């Protein structure tokens, strides 16, 4: 079996909580990520979806080394990167790059586009300084802009153009993996498609692997080979895109799919599953399966004790998909709506 490009084993990230506690007591722990197991193969596009607070952004930042992992292992091309810091991390930093959500905040307002694009080249000393201006021009053209952008400042550009610049900066040193955290959610629909096509081109032409973090199912569905679904810091389902969309294995995924199928919903289409209640807070993650408080399948099955006492592990189903539910396969039947709104 080939070595995965990126492998996460039992990765957890915790923060000290802010809830009230005694002066000499340890502060309560806030679990942002809880036992994440995930692989990204070379050239693969893996989608990571989840609602706010699910931990998807923290996962991206943990891989980048921007937040420390509390337990677990991360390897890049088989080499451990979990506890590598400082200068020793540079080669890994070069191989994994991040594109942020808001292109208005992620570009330095007082640096020209040329300076912004040259910075990663300088840090990694990847090419001789004399070749840098030509490289900047090539990068700009690669993302669909023209070389005359190099002398201008971010304020002159629209959101879509800025996101192109941010992507050019991320690919400056030919990374193996691009982590894109909601790269199109701040953009208008007509401009979104331009950026999604650019990302698809980069994948095809440069063999980039991608971890695409988004709350928008249709966008992830369009771009990714596989999708991982997160809920309250855990992965609840991993499956190839087509299989997940047509036959979700986890009841939470089924509810997400149902909420997302709104455009062109025809009369007579299955009634959408509407989850009751809010996503619980990280300070009070429900015992057992964290999703059971909102789960329609749990209600339908007559509230089995297992769901609220035992944590379901992410396990492999007969068809190769992974789901963290005690009732694999039962989420696929068209579900009845939850009554309470």
């Amino acid at each position: 079996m080939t070595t995965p490009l990126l492998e996460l084993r039992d990765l957890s990230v915790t923060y000290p909580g802010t809830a009230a506690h005694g002066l000499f007591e340890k502060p309560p722990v806030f679990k942002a990520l809880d036992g994440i197991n995930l692989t990204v193969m070379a050239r693969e596009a893996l989608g990571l979806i989840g609602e706010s607070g699910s931990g998807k952004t923290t996962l991206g930042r943990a891989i980048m080394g921007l937040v420390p992992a509390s337990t677990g292992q991360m390897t890049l091309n088989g080499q451990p990167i979990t506890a590598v810091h400082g200068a020793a991390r540079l080669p890994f930093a070069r191989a994994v790059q991040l594109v942020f959500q808001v292109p208005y905040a992620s570009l330095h307002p007082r640096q020209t586009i040329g300076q912004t694009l040259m910075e990663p080249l300088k840090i990694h000393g990847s090419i001789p300084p004399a070749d840098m201006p030509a490289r900047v021009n090539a990068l700009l053209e690669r993302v669909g802009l023209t070389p005359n952008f190099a002398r201008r400042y971010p304020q002159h550009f629209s959101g879509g153009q800025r996101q192109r610049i941010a992507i050019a900066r991320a690919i400056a040193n030919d990374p193996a993996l691009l982590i894109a955290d909601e790269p199109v959610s701040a953009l208008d629909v007509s401009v979104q498609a331009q950026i999604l096509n650019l990302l698809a081109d980069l994948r095809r032409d440069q063999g980039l692997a991608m971890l695409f973090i988004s709350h928008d199912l249709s966008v992830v569905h369009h771009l990714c080979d596989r999708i991982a679904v997160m809920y309250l810091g855990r992965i609840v389902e991993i499956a190839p895109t087509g299989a997940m969309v047509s036959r979700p294995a986890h009841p939470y995924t089924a509810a997400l799919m149902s909420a997302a199928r709104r455009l062109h919903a025809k009369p007579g289409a299955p009634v959408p599953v509407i989850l009751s209640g809010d996503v619980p807070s990280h300070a009070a993650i429900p015992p057992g399966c964290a999703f059971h408080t909102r789960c329609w399948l749990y209600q339908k099955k007559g509230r089995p004790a297992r769901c609220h006492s035992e944590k379901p592990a992410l396990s492999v189903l007969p068809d190769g998909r992974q789901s963290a539910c005690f009732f694999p396969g039962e989420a696929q039947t068209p579900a009845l709506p939850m009554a309470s709104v």
Partner: protein
Amino acid sequence: MTLLDVKDMTVSVHAGARTAPIIDGLTFQIKAGQCLGIVGESGSGKSSVALAVMGLLNNDALRIGGTIELDGTDLVTLPSAQLRARQGSDIAMIFQDPASSLNPVQRIGAQIIESLRAHRRISRSDATRLAVEALGRVGMPDPAGMMRRYAHQLSGGQRQRVMIAMAVILKPRLLVADEPTTALDLTIQAQILALLKQLVRDTGMALMLITHDLGVVAEMADDLIVLYAGRAVEAGPTAQVLDHPRHPYTIGLLAAHPVLETRQDRLTPIPGTPPRLWHRPMGCAFHPRCKWAQDACRAGVPAAQLVRGTQTAACLRLDAMQVSA
């Protein structure tokens, strides 16, 4: 019967000798119990439509033209005291970000009671009872307990429910909702949309839904207007427009958005970006991004034409597009 009748609405901003139209000649009606969706990208003027209908564009730099009639009364020319009496009671509004619409240092209950007592002469205890009822009606758990909470103690979905409770407590005829679910998670969005639908069905109020999300419109609206650079480029019954769009912008928007049902190799983006307010193109504002554009499109503003039933599209090239389709 028609509840809101907007004719040739214009909103323009003045800076020195220069004028720019934010909204340029918008005409539409909403009937009681109906939902009208107004769809547009950022800068299309969709929020200005909402604020103009609410009478909230009292700004020296802005001019409002045309008529906005609610039940036969023109809100544009209505004296401010009378307009004030209608705001919040006959027409109410909910906003995109419930976190910044609620007062952070006042309890939820006090805020609901305040808006209630601003319009009705009722005792504090009656107001409290009505407020608790309203919170229950919008599906808040423990309505009486919620009255004593502060906004920061609620989730995003709960805050939007409080905003909705406040908006509908005086039984408005028209609810204006400006991107009511954009800041919310997908599963919470579904809850809030279901709640709005239920309120429209139960109370017969009309809903004017402003959004950038075609999926939300498809689910909620009976009719829709597609707004581009301050003008209605296409309008009509929602299902018909989404299934058979005729304006190049609507066609482009639908093609640009990935859908779950089919897997496309490539999306078809609309080239370029929406025009900025002070740089709107001459003629049809969409022509620089339109592959069907001709000289005539640059010269004159196309008028809305009936294309099928009540569906209208404002495009000079409808015939050519039909041939190529």
